[in-house]
């Protein structure tokens, strides 16, 4: 068990997630940030959670769009073939 009293850190997980979305109200936000300044474990959880989301967003954004052949087949299945050349 870590040395500090972390009995209530588990309760803050939901707030951390809401905090990362920027949806935590001012009062709870201040309270959480104060806790994070004092609790290294929770700070690591928040930081690594934030980074996790960032990495998934970034790699998703880097994937190319629908491959050309897939797009062609999609247009065909929707009877849009005659419009395909406008791309």
């Amino acid at each position, binding site marked *: 068990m870590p040395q500090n009293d972390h009995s209530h850190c588990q309760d803050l997980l939901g707030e951390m997630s809401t905090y*990362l979305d920027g949806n935590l109200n001012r009062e709870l936000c201040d309270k959480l940030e104060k806790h994070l300044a004092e609790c290294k474990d929770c700070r690591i*959880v928040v930081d690594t959670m934030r980074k996790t989301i960032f990495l998934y967003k970034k790699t998703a954004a880097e994937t190319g769009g629908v491959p050309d052949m897939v797009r062609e087949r999609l247009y065909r299945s*929707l009877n849009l073939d005659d*419009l395909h050349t406008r791309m």
Partner: protein
Amino acid sequence: MNGLVDHGFSLNALRSGDKQEIARLVDAYSNQIYRLGLKMLGNPQDAEDILQNTFLKMLQNIKGFEGRSSISTWLYRIAANEALMLIRKKKPEVDLTDQLNEYGDGNPPEPENLIDWCCLPEQELLTAEARDHLDLNIANLPEKLRIVFILRDIDGLSIESTADALNISETAVKTRLLRARLHLREGLSKYYGERFSGRMDNHAAK
């Protein structure tokens, strides 16, 4: 009544089968839906099936679409449903009781790995091997958590739209998103911790 305009799309035009308008809608959302299929099913064939089925079903049902949600939310709802149904079809032997524990009963899983890997440079966090691991990590998420993470954190849907698309409460969206994030975080912490163990403060919990 003139055609409703939904985020720039004319429902009347779509309903009347206007090919230009349908093509515009397809172009606007096919990338996201294909990506959703890829992340949910893990292979291009299934992703393509989901892509085609989503737009086919949209066209089949557009006349009855009342516009209570936006077209994009509706498309995501169809796509999410297709993905979840296909997953279920592929592994019907899943133990339902295991899955129930993932959906909000009891407390969220306690973070175990407390290695601080955030300081690592991005080119190390995103090597080809690390990217493979990112894919594996999300593939291991229970699908009902995975879909919430994809809609919220990757596609950027609001809590409200996500709840609408998945036909669950906003509270359920938040709970499942938290669990998804915790699982993914744990998986990455384990991976980066093992890869770079000599180089970071280690705060392994006991």
